[in-house]
């Protein structure tokens, strides 16, 4: 019955489109989201003990399409359902048209379907439809900037997906099947060198979707579009980019005999650095958050490629954490933008006084993303570092330092301001509730981190006191260094301003797609 | 016997098409070209389809071919006619056998 997870939201969306009563729509949506979240948790419990397999139509397993729900995919499904629940709560009193919810729920169905599918071509269909939905949601208000951004997003993703499709074609040609598990069984008996080309094609496409270094040009345009609805930006950064990483994990297991982890670790490190340097040079709060997504993707990419079970688990846990704190930050930024009427970081002051609850949630999310002790980011970074070598650990600490610097910059919006002019604003209850839920989860994800990881992945690891103390010390030193750097370098630097104005156009993105493809091919020849 | 006749008619059709293609490249006038292109579309296609239908004798397949032939007979003259008419309406002039250069479209770089 796994197909219901993708079909129910779609049917719900169509019903919402046909029914003209707004209040009915919203109550129904909330109710259905609660139901979906509950059932996804239920599915998670079931698939923890045993993989759930649904053969659609009861045909022989390779003939039809098979849906599989193992621990990884059911975690992602639960994450999707939870985040959409939060977003529905957040937008409960919004007055977007019915198209908005129509697209939103279809999007949810597609993401669920993508996570549960185990058929290569089926994944292609889901990715393609989701791309169109995302581009339309981004340009929901149809103004100048978002129109251009959405178009670039749609076109570059379509081009990348053609590479993916070509890769699927080769896998079908070589193995004769499209089901992931069946193809893996056949691939084990063949020469790995025959699969270099499909590997390069598919990984190029997925790397563009993940926004790795030469291919990240579309991400700030897409995630940082000024006029995109806040919930859409939050879901894009929190969830949609994760489906690319989910695909990366799946294909890493799929191509297990082609081990290119050194290449991806290098790319991951560069991505992390480029992400925070670009973030430091921005002044638009939405763009800062968008570039931070790139930096965090770099860390996740690094973690997933370290050949160590703890690091990989830490990477997956960091995906969940990133979904929580990045959505929280984007939702808060949306509220702040609405109250202040600007997105310029130098003009917003005194958020904590004016919007205490939103400010509190922002602080919790910032502590989460910078890896402060007791918050969820620290646990996942602890796991990642525990399996990494000395060089990679140093790189992670440096990237974290960069993140801290730019979030010190970001947190200037929380304080300051003249006392007389600041009054507390009344905001919608539902919005505050949604933001607070995410913020509190960031906190509890840290305190109960070990139990949570044990619950999710059945991996037991005690965080010993000495290591924890070291962690606290490291964080304190990082904050101190970060503050000094911020105070005396970042504020005055002219180079950063020049870097900040850099942007890739569509032709440049296509060319870098080709460059990345050549790079992967060369790496395959040289490293293997 | 039907097979030979059919093949002969198909070859004739191909010959007509080849002559037509030479004609298109020989003449420079737009309206003459339309005339020749219409010849290829109608006469060439009709003869080839007729040949195919003859080759297969009386069957469901040749019935379908004949239906196709009917559609071509109705539609092809119409399309050539509409192209010529639109060209005339949008400003292509016939002058002493030569066509005056493009007036209808501004150049847009791609």
């Amino acid at each position, binding site marked *: 019955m796994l197909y219901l997870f993708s*079909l129910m939201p779609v049917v719900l969306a169509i019903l919402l489109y046909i029914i003209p009563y707004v209040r009915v729509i919203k109550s129904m949506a909330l109710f259905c989201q609660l139901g979906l979240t509950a059932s996804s948790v239920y599915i998670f419990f079931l698939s923890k003990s045993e993989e759930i397999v649904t053969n659609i139509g009861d045909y022989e397993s390779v003939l039809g399409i098979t849906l599989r729900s193992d621990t990884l995919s059911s975690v992602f499904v639960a994450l999707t359902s939870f985040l959409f629940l939060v977003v529905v709560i957040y937008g409960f009193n919004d007055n977007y048209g019915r198209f908005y919810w129509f697209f939103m729920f279809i999007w949810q169905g597609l993401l669920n379907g993508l996570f549960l599918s185990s058929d290569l071509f089926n994944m292609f269909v889901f990715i393609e439809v989701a791309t169109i939905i995302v581009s339309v949601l981004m340009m929901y208000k149809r103004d100048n900037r978002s129109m251009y951004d959405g178009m670039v997003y749609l076109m570059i993703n379509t081009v990348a997906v053609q590479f993916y499709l070509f890769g699927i074609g080769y896998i079908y040609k070589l*193995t004769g099947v499209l089901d992931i598990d069946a193809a893996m069984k056949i691939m084990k008996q063949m020469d790995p060198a025959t699969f270099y080309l499909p590997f390069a094609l598919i990984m190029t496409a997925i790397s563009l979707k993940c926004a790795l270094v030469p291919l990240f040009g579309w991400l700030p345009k897409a995630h940082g579009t000024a006029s995109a609805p806040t919930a859409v930006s939050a879901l894009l950064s929190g969830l949609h980019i994760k489906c690319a990483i989910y695909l990366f994990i799946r294909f890493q297991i799929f191509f297990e005999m082609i081990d290119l982890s050194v290449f991806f670790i290098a790319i991951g490190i560069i991505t992390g650095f480029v992400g925070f340097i670009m973030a430091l040079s921005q002044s638009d709060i939405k763009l800062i958050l968008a570039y931070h997504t790139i930096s965090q993707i770099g860390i996740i990419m690094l973690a997933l490629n370290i050949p160590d079970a703890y690091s990989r688990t830490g990477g997956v846990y960091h995906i969940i954490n990133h979904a929580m704190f990045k959505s929280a930050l984007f939702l808060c930024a949306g509220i702040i933008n609405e109250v202040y009427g600007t997105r310029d970081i130098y003009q917003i002051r005194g958020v904590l006084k004016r919007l205490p609850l939103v400010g509190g949630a922002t602080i919790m999310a910032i502590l989460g993303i910078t890896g402060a002790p007791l918050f969820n980011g620290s646990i996942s970074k602890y796991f990642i570092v525990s399996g990494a070598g000395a060089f990679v650990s140093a790189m992670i600490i440096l990237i974290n330092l960069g993140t801290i610097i730019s979030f010190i910059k970001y947190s200037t919006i929380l304080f300051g301001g003249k006392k007389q002019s600041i009054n507390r604003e009344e905001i919608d209850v539902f919005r505050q509730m949604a933001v607070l839920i995410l913020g509190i989860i960031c906190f509890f994800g840290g305190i109960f981190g070990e139990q949570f990881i044990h619950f999710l992945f059945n991996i037991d690891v005690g965080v010993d006191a000495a290591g924890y103390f070291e962690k606290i010390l490291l964080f304190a030193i990082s904050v101190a260094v970060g503050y000094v750097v911020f105070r005396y370098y970042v504020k005055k630097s002219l180079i950063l301003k020049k870097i900040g104005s850099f942007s890739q156009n569509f032709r440049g993105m296509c060319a870098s797609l080709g460059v990345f493809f050549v790079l992967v091919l060369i790496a395959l020849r040289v490293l293997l | 016997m039907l097979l030979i006749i059919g093949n002969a008619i198909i070859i004739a059709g191909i010959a007509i098409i080849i002559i037509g293609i030479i004609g298109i490249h020989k003449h420079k006038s737009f309206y003459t070209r339309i005339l020749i292109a219409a010849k290829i579309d109608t006469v060439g296609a009709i003869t080839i389809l007729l040949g195919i239908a003859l080759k297969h004798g009386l069957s469901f397949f040749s019935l379908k071919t004949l239906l196709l032939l009917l559609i071509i007979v109705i539609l092809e003259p119409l399309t050539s006619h509409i192209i010529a008419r639109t060209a005339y309406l949008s400003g292509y002039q016939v002058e002493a056998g030569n066509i005056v250069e493009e007036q209808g479209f501004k150049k847009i770089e791609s």
Partner: protein
Amino acid sequence: MIQIFLVFWLISALLIIIDKQLVHLIIHLGIFSMISSVCFFLLAAPDVALAEAVVSVFTTIIFIVCFEKYYSLVDVSVVKDSKGKIWRKLLPIGFCALLAVMFLMFIPDVPASIYLKDKYITMFAEDIGGENAVTAIYLGYRVYDTLFEALMLLVSIAAIIHLSWHEGKAQIEEQGESGMGNYRIASATIRIIVPVLVLFSFYLMVNGHISPGGGFQGGAVIAVLFICRYIIYHLHDVKIDRIIILEKLVFVLIAVVVIYFIFLGAGSWLSLPGEVYLLIMNLLIGVKVACGLLVMFYRFVIYERK
């Protein structure tokens, strides 16, 4: 035979890429689609050839409509001739040649696997029914894909409606010079040809399970028919809102039929033969595709502000 057409195919693609004028580009795009359709037919894929032929007609029409809008909207004088240096032109050529050569170097020299092909060809008649293996896969084994592909059409229509939205009442273009409302030859011919084409599209839909064709191709033919009718008469009597609702309902209906017949497994077939299911699905998909393409076209033509 196929080699000759492949060379033509390559040349027509080259023509599109090196075109300097957009008008030529659209004409060459039509030629390209037609030649690829012939190639598909020669590659023993008549279903695909039919689909591509019908789609190419539709694509060319919307390209022309779009070009007309573009031509009326864009200030052409903004575009200026750019004279780059020679290496600026050679660099992309060299880069793409490098990519192609690298790609060709890595092509695995292994014969194609026929593992699934044999299974499908021996089993589809029992499992699904009908004589067309492609339809059996499209509507039987991989119907989950088809469902989401239908969703894609639905979503893109909603997207087009949303993007081309504007406040106020629907604006209808004035009947210009190009309208053929009182043009006797065209309207008389179209009156003769319409019944034949309707018959043809129903033939495609009803015989989808035993011969090339199917719901998509038949529905697209119907949509093209309506487009012809619009081009000849410039009639605006189509109720688009109702078509949109109809399309959504048909999608729900398709989902219900699929869930009932396929997803719930062989137990719930109600002892109906597989052909009945294929027939129902072909008709439903035909209606859905016809509605979808029509709405797209009308949104492009009528409800745009000029």
